[in-house]
């Protein structure tokens, strides 16, 4: 499957997605109205706790729900110069958690260099590993050991404990390869030794919301252990946001209206208080700054009074007083038990 960008699909353009959600196929009320009802508008940041770097859109998979529109045909990746600028900011502001994502972040040629630099700073490093990359090429086979050496928290997607549901979302044979990769991670201690965290991400493989995070975690643990002898630490449930390829899926399958209505009907005020954009700074592959990874994919750069919008010229104080940019897609983070890169928020 080619990315939307490669297909020159209308939804590859962020403006087209925003127009679809905010105008042409708007389903109300607006997210702004919902926030205002509880006195949360304009939405303000708390404190930057997570520095999330998108190392590029290049990926060995082309998942049907991917909000990044990542894939083998995407060539946009972060340069070493941008990484150096990020490292400077991490150092000077004493940031403690750095979350590396993509695409497949490991495909960036400076990935290992960056991890070692971060490791020497003593920050907590999270790598969002799609699992199959470990088997994709012999040069990636030692990734489990590399992760372990650098004390990385590994977060990996596995939308279901059955092959049929996982492969429907992530591609043919992805489930089988993911299980193989999980076994390799287990073998070096991930998910089994207390300090080597292996957390899984559950994204619903269709037009429905995730169920209770703890109940799903229990079921996943039982199933993966009994069938494959695979262990992991926590399961994070993440709601699919109606953008990019997932928006395309919703449109194509005739589920857009019902899905948006469901997101809005299950708006949870507590989840709204805990949205991840309040404590996260998202850095695009080209160094531009966003309130979250989803705003990044919609090209909604941060807006501040006195700071630039690029990692090379930011003013952290101004970032703290900015208004977080919002849109109808944000209902994905406030539905049900809430959703963030770290799972449910309530």
């Amino acid at each position, binding site marked *: 499957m080619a990315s939307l960008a490669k297909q020159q699909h209308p939804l590859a353009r962020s403006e087209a997605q925003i127009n679809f959600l905010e105008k042409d196929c708007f389903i109300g009320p607006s997210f702004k109205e919902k926030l205002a009802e509880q006195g949360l508008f304009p939405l303000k940041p708390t404190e930057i706790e997570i520095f999330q770097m998108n190392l590029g859109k290049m990926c060995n998979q082309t998942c049907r729900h991917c909000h990044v529109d990542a894939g083998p045909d995407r060539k946009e990746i972060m340069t070493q110069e941008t990484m150096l600028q990020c490292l400077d900011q991490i150092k000077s502001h004493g940031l403690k958690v750095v979350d590396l994502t993509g695409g497949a972040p490991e495909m960036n040629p400076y990935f290992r260099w960056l991890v070692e630099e971060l490791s020497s700073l003593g920050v907590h490093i999270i790598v969002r590993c799609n699992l199959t990359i470990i088997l994709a090429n012999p040069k990636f086979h030692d990734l489990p050991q590399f992760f372990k050496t650098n004390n990385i928290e590994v977060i990996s997607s596995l939308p279901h404990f059955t092959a049929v549901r996982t492969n429907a979302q992530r591609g043919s044979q992805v489930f089988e390869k993911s299980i193989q990769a999980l076994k390799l991670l287990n073998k070096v201690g991930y998910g089994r030794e207390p300090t080597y965290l292996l957390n899984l991400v559950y994204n619903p493989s269709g037009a429905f919301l995730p169920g209770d995070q703890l*109940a799903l975690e229990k079921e*996943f643990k039982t199933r993966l252990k009994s069938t494959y002898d695979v262990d992991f630490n926590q399961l994070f449930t993440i709601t699919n946001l109606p953008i990019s390829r997932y928006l395309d899926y919703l449109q194509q399958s005739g589920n857009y209206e019902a899905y948006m209505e469901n997101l809005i009907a299950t708006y949870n005020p507590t989840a709204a208080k805990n949205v991840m954009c309040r404590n996260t700074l998202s850095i695009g592959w080209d160094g531009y700054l966003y309130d979250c990874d989803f705003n990044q994919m919609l090209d909604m750069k941060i807006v501040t009074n006195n700071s630039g919008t690029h990692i090379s010229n930011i003013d952290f104080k101004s970032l703290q007083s900015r208004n977080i940019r919002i849109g109808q897609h944000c209902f994905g983070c406030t539905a049900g038990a809430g959703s963030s890169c770290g799972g449910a928020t309530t």
Partner: protein
Amino acid sequence: MNSTYYDPADLKKFGEIEEFQPDLAKKFFDYYGDVFSEGELTSREKSLIALAVSHAIQCPYCIDAYTSDSLEKGASEGQMMEAVHVSAAIRGGASLVHGVQMMNKVKKITM
């Protein structure tokens, strides 16, 4: 009146039954919520039971709701279809077990 007896949009209006009788509606929905919360049975198991019952009583609203709910709770397609077969087996068995009554009667009135 609608031109059809069942309208998918009516499912979302279930809560509106309180309009004509709020006290009983409240009691029902409180009870309903408690029934489906995690207990001796998991909420996923309860959802699969509800899916099976939905097929037994052939309620399109319930089938719609508990198909989504089972998926949300992580049930697989295989588990969901097995639940439907449980429903079919009980319904079919309920007919067939009455065959014994028929046989009893036949034996009583024939030589």
